[in-house]
């Protein structure tokens, strides 16, 4: 799987390869609730979709995958939450990816955990630990606007 290993492998001799790619330009349709969620980030709000049955879906989606009912309402969740699981990506310094269930949400969602010393990144005690969503000073309406830090 390593890109470096892939590059280092020599091409076999006497075989003709045809270089071609699969680049088909797309214009993806965004879920309208997700666009409202991105808008909410600009005012440092974390908005979940609330299904008619009361299920809070974060990030929001216009269809509840459990009840198949239409979701139109947005409700604020967080900023506090609980880490449900995590992984550490090798980098310098390594990056911690967490799935956090924000207070009030019925789902967990991905993000980066910041402010953890490298020696503490591999502690399985992170699972179940309380954390809080922290916003950038000037959010722009995308995923880079917030991250998570440990703490109640």
């Amino acid at each position, binding site marked *: 799987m390593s890109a470096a290993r*892939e590059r280092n492998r020599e091409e076999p001799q006497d075989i003709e390869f045809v270089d071609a790619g699969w680049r088909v330009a797309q214009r993806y349709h965004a879920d309208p609730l*997700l666009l409202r969620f991105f808008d909410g980030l600009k005012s440092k709000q974390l908005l979940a979709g609330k299904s008619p049955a009361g299920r809070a879906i974060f990030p929001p989606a216009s269809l509840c995958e459990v009840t198949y009912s239409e979701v139109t309402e947005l409700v604020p969740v967080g900023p506090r939450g609980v880490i449900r699981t995590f992984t550490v*990506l*090798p980098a310098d310094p390594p990056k911690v*990816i967490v799935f956090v269930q924000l207070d009030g949400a019925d789902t967990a969602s991905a993000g980066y955990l910041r402010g953890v010393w490298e020696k503490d990144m591999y502690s399985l005690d992170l699972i179940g630990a309380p954390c809080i969503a922290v916003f950038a000073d000037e959010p722009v309406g*995308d995923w880079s606007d917030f991250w998570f830090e440990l703490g109640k």
Partner: protein
Amino acid sequence: MTNSAGNSAVLGVAQLPMRTRLPETTYADLLGQAASKAVADAGLDLDQIDGLLLAQAPTTTLGVDEPQYWGIAGLPGADKFLGRVHVAAASGLTALRLAAAHVKSGRLRNVLIVAADLADEAASLRGALGAMHDPFTSGQAPINAITAAALQTSYYMATHKASERTMASVAVKNRGNGALNPFAQLRKPVTVDEVIESPVLSWPIRRLDSSPRTSGAAAIVVGRAGDVGPKRAVRIAGYGAFSGARSIGAQMVPGASSYLDGSDLTEAARRAYADADIADPTAEIGMAEVYASFGIFELLSIEGLGLCGSGEAAPRIAAGEFQRTAPLPVNPSGGATCGNPISASGLVRIAEAVTQLRGEAGERQVELKAPRAIVTATGGLFQTHEVGVLEA
């Protein structure tokens, strides 16, 4: 016969040796080779195949170009009944269910299922897999096959107090098994130390805990049990499938935690056992070939299949259970750890189980305490589960 598959059976199997690269081969060549070998293995003539199911992901060529140009339509049975299944790595077993249902109904007599993967045609497998995700939510963090499995692994280690050394015993077992499998891509055994010292891909997953990038192909023929000699036919005793929620984050919370504890697979197994009339899998099953592109998949599969309790699979493998010579071997072929042509991997599991049930596995043959094998396949981020029970 009251089960879903009726009297249907796997009549023939074929797999091609799995390799890092197959530079002199095209998809059409691979599919054709695997197909003709499986039909020959069944002892049938090509014109006795009256249905073809292609069970693989789209490739740039097969997905965009006209299929007949690439020779799919030239494969046995395609002129009579052509279908295609793509449920990622689960495709082979999904196709088995569809073929068995068609055979049971009497609509088709002999269905050929074939799949190939030329992973080496992609400049970077990681890049290709990374291109498949939701453009709106993927900005949260890089969630791909590796990081997603790592999220399950850390949860398993935390919940069951399993050390990295214990977790590494899965890869050690499988690489040892692969050394005896002539079809395997990786045939060099590894030690626990080598696994835990191999580079981190996404902690706790390391390179040796992960399946390699593989090109390969496999095919099977599904027909009626009575149509070939009793030694060759392996009956499809039952099957079950379950597909969970579309987002993994919805299955990581108290009360809905199937992504972390593997309970979607448990449901697929429950359905398969009910179909095959199996009450006690530990006593009635002789071996299992489970789809495990990472060690954690094998642990969740062993536990989800009811072969041991929750959290027990890792320490029990480390203690010598589920090994090739143990009473209930799991992945005696070496599994996907030793070669993972993703599209064809479900068919490889079936081909291996059938070969073992026939007693034709040569050096890697296991002693079967019961004449039944479980095969599994899993698609997406551990989201689509297929369980089949095969019986000699």
